[in-house]
Every structure is written in C-alpha cells, then in structure tokens.
C-alpha cells in the first residue's frame, strides 16, 4: 500500500516536471523568436543608417569640394570663354608679333559640342607669309597662344621670289582651340 502510494506520487511529480519542461521549451522558443526578430530589425536599422550616413558624407564632401575649387573652376571657365572674334584677334596678334602677314582662312567646328563641358573645338586655318625666320617665329607663337589651343598641322612652303630678293615662305597652320562660347555651325 505504502509502495503503491509512493509510486503514485512519483508519477505525479514526474508529470509535473515534464509539464514544466515543455512549458520551459515553449518559453525558450518564444524568447528565441522574439530576439531573432528584434535583431533583424536592428540590423536593418543599422544598415539603413550606414547608407544614409554614407550619402550624407558624400554630399558634404561634394559641397566642400565645390566650395574649395570655386575659384579654380571660375578660372578654368575663363580660360575657355574667349569667343571666335577674340580667338581670331589673338591669332592675328601673334602673327603681327612675328612680323608676318596673317590671314585666317577658315574656322570650323571639330566634332559636336561636348555636352558635359559645354565646349566646342574650333579649327582655324591660318595663313602667314614672310621670311623663313618670320614664319618659324609665327609657328612658335601659334604654339604658345594664351588660349586653350594646340597646333595640329604646319605646312611651310617657299614661294618663287624675284632675283635679289629674299625668298618668301608661306605658312599654313591648323590651330585647334577649345571654346565655351556659342558657335553657330
């Protein structure tokens, strides 16, 4: 009788502990789900904040760079701001400084306007005449014009001259100039 009672209470205790254990596991599972969900949302929050901060940092750096380079960019814009007439005058002045007669035969656009920089490449065909030393000097000055320019081609040719006179040389130069002024084609 005593043994039977002891066995019965042991079974009750075992069942009670089993119920407790199952309840504990259910609790642990809910705790795990809750922590996982919160960790996910925190990770997303951190990720969004990192992206936002990187964008803000880029914006700050861009603004600072723009502010720091404002003077240099204005100077750069000024470099290419010379219009066609101004460029032609500079070329004429270079020829005059070299002591040659200078004619600008033609000026044409080299390709389409660069949409990013809003500039056009103009090619001037310049003809000069004088002694070899003079046209050579003119070529040197055309190479160093105070403009964003580069000499593409130089053709020197000697013209027949009268006896006793020093020979006349013709220089044909193709000069490419970058300009941001409006050019009608």
């Amino acid at each position, binding site marked *: 009788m005593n043994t039977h009672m002891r066995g019965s209470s042991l079974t009750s205790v075992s069942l009670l502990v089993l119920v407790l254990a199952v309840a*504990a596991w259910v609790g642990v599972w809910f705790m795990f789900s809750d922590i996982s969900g919160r960790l996910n949302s925190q990770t997303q929050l951190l990720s969004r904040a990192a992206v936002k901060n990187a964008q803000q940092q880029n914006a700050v750096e861009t603004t600072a760079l*723009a502010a720091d380079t404002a003077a240099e960019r204005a100077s750069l814009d000024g470099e290419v701001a010379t219009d066609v007439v101004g460029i032609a005058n500079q070329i004429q002045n270079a020829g005059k400084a070299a002591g040659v007669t200078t004619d600008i035969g033609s000026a044409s656009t080299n390709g389409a306007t660069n949409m990013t920089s809003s500039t056009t490449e103009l090619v001037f065909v310049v003809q000069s005449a004088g002694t070899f030393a003079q046209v050579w000097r003119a070529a040197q000055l055309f190479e160093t014009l105070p403009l964003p320019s580069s000499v593409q081609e130089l053709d020197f040719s000697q013209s027949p001259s009268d006896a006793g006179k020093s020979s006349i040389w013709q220089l044909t130069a193709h000069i490419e100039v*970058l300009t941001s002024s409006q050019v009608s084609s």
Partner: protein
Amino acid sequence: MRAQYRARLLLVFSLVLLAGALFFALALAPAEASLLSFTSPTVQQNTQTNATLAADSAALTRAKALLTQLAPMDATSSLDALAAALSRAGTGITVDDIQYSVSGRSISLAGHAQTPDEVNTFNEALQSDPRFTGVSVPVSALLGSENGSFTITMKIAQ
C-alpha cells in the same frame, strides 16, 4: 514495481528536458542583454538641398571634363623635332616645302639636292637619329633620276 521504474524514467527525462530549456535560455541571455543596451544610430542631418547638391555635382563634373579636354593641349613646343630634322640637312640640300602633322607626329620634307649623294647622306643622318622612325625616301631620288628633287618622310618617335 514497473510503474515505479517508469515514473523514475519519466522524471529523469523531464529533468533533462528542463535542464536543456534552462541551458538555451541562458545562452540567449547575452543576445537579450545586447538588445536592451542597443541605442539607435545617429544619422547626419542633411544641410544641403538636392538642387544645390545637383548643381555642385554638375559643376565638378564639368570641370573634370574640361580638364580632360585641356590635358593634351600642353604648352610644350612641337617645333623642336622639326628643327632637329632640318638641322640634319647638309649644305648641298635646299628644303622648300615642309609638311608637319603635329597630331599625326609625321614630317615630310621636300626640296632639291646638288647631288644624289647629298640626299643619301641626309637620309642616313635622319635614320641614325633616334628621334625619328620610318625615314623614307624614294629610290629614284637616291639614284638621281629626279634632277635632284627629293621628298623625305618620317615619323617622330614617341
């Protein structure tokens, strides 16, 4: 007696199950602690409007494009190579036409020579100069069958 053993076995199994649950609960404790101590990240405040930022970006992009276009337009003289080529001409050589493609890095010299040997000497002098490559003269000019006229073409070495 068998029921007693079964009850003991059930008790041991339940205790092991309970211990496992407690173990996992304790394992989750550090994660819970870190979640409780989590503070929201700070986000920098945007002081620039989108329009200002776009304008700054466009201005910087334009400056970069301008610099790219201006880079090849350096102030170095390209006449040095031409002067070097002309300096190789001997006293019996008269050059009366020079075509110089600065962008194509090529030179063409045309003129007259007193003798075919003068053309040959001029040609050899240019070929031995490392500043020039592909120096070429028509064979007829070297043989003197063009009454002293010649045209020498060459490329400027990189």
